[in-house]
């Protein structure tokens, strides 16, 4: 693995060396390293690009890292990763994609991640996206995430995209069974001429299922963002979505929350707030000796933390 690939790996997975537990590192379209454990198996798909990750019942306190890095300009790929998580598990899955494009062609990674979560399991899923490179080639990522949360299970999903991705459309579709819970936290920052779209759909099918979608976004310069959150309450359930966004310069953000109650005991709430940084926040930090630019940076960093 070369220096550029190492840097990408550090950015998206915080990895300085090979991680403990199960992992599969995909670099420039090929599997670069893999490790399985007694409870976690990773199998290459036969019919298409991608892997199956199988986690046995009762697997506790184990982790799987599946970072993807692209450092070759002009590479486009479509990858399918399927996660089968058994009953009574407690696992952390860290995915992420780093692109370094120093050429003039588009580099593109489209990933479809499907999660099949059994009963009474807790899954923490972390996904980071990062792009770098000094070429004119665009970095494009279109991640799709499909999640089935089984009875009594809890899925926690954290996605972060802070820099370097020129165009992204993220689609997340989830359905929840009885007593299942889903919490999604998204952090997104765009700048330059970037475009980012985030599309969530959550079906609360089971009795007492619940979800909380939280998005914090900052759009700078000429970038644009679209946030769509749909929650369908099909049973006695609780759903909440929240989009909180800061807009700067000439950026544009649209937030389209949609909640549909198909059951009398569905309790659904959406909140969306978009605005520029409050002038008094900048002034307060300036009274502490920061310049206007430093004050903005502090406020944005804190907001996205």
């Amino acid at each position: 693995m070369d220096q550029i690939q190492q840097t990408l790996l550090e950015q998206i997975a915080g990895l300085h060396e090979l991680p403990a537990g199960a992992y599969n590192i995909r670099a420039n379209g090929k599997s670069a390293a893999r490790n399985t454990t007694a409870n976690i198996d990773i199998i290459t798909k036969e019919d298409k690009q991608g892997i199956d990750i199988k986690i046995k019942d009762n697997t506790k306190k184990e982790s799987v890292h599946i970072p993807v890095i692209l450092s070759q300009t002009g590479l486009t790929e479509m990858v399918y990763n399927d996660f089968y998580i058994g009953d009574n598990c407690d696992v952390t899955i860290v995915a992420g994609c780093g692109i370094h494009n120093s050429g003039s062609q588009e580099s593109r990674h489209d990933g479809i991640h499907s999660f099949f979560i059994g009963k009474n399991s807790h899954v923490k899923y972390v996904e980071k996206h990062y792009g770098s490179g000094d070429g004119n080639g665009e970095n494009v990522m279109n991640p799709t995430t499909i999640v089935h949360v089984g009875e009594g299970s809890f899925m926690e999903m954290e996605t972060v995209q802070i820099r370097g991705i020129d165009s992204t459309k993220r689609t997340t579709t989830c359905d929840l069974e009885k007593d299942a819970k889903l919490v999604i936290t998204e952090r997104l920052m765009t700048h330059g001429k970037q475009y980012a779209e985030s599309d969530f759909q959550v079906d609360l099918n089971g009795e007492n299922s619940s979800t909380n979608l939280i998005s914090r976004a900052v759009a700078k310069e000429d970038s644009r963002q679209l946030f769509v959150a749909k929650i369908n309450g099909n049973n006695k359930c609780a759903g909440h979505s929240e989009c909180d966004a800061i807009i700067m310069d000439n950026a544009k953000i649209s937030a389209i929350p949609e909640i549909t109650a198909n059951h009398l005991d569905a309790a659904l709430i959406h909140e969306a707030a978009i605005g520029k940084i409050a002038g008094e926040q900048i002034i307060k930090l300036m009274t502490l000796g920061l310049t206007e630019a430093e004050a903005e940076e502090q406020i944005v960093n804190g907001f996205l933390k």
Partner: protein
Amino acid sequence: MLELRDLSFEVTPENGAKKEIIRNINLTIEDHSLTAITGPNGGGKSTLAKLIMGIEKPTGGQILYNGQDITNLSVTDRAKFGISFAFQQPVRFKGIKVKDLITLASGTKLSTVDACEYLSKVGLCARDYINRDVDASLSGGELKRIEIATIIARNTPLSVFDEPEAGIDLWSFNNLIKVFEDMKSARENSLIIISHQERILNIADNIIVIADGKVKEQGAAKNLLPHLLSGTGGCKFYQ
């Protein structure tokens, strides 16, 4: 030394006529002194403080600090020059922690222990607050005390407090008086405290009464206080 020369501030609301908020104020704040500014609501006290900090720009007159004309300096430059300002209504932030704010104020890398010390001075149990966000979850009084802690952490030659006592409970108020007395007895820094509280006026060296955008009265506290606190003076200024 801070000098205000013929300082004026007027606003022209979109619909209406010009409004003079500060009218030709001339004032000198000596070094190593505690000056209390008092006077009726709407008299122009906060506006005067904002003019000193540079948050509002005067429409006439000059501000001199240690002999230098700072009238056209930015808020940042004045802050770096050694002026601090505690807001009457402190600002809230999503995602900035109490410790971050105190660290920014101090201008150095602070250990948690150091940051906690500033919070303790304003009567907050530091461990409970240090890692909280300075956001809407803080009560008004908590926020106000954190604001004061940031000014203590800055430790600049001139500190301006806008109604520091507002919303602060009795126990903390005693603490606060002690904070100001300590700052005063150190005799290194000058304080300007906008206040309606007799106990704060009591520890001041000088008192300035601002009403209707003008200095109505000023002088040594020991001379002014008795008649300010007696009904007659009060009636004159607070009608």
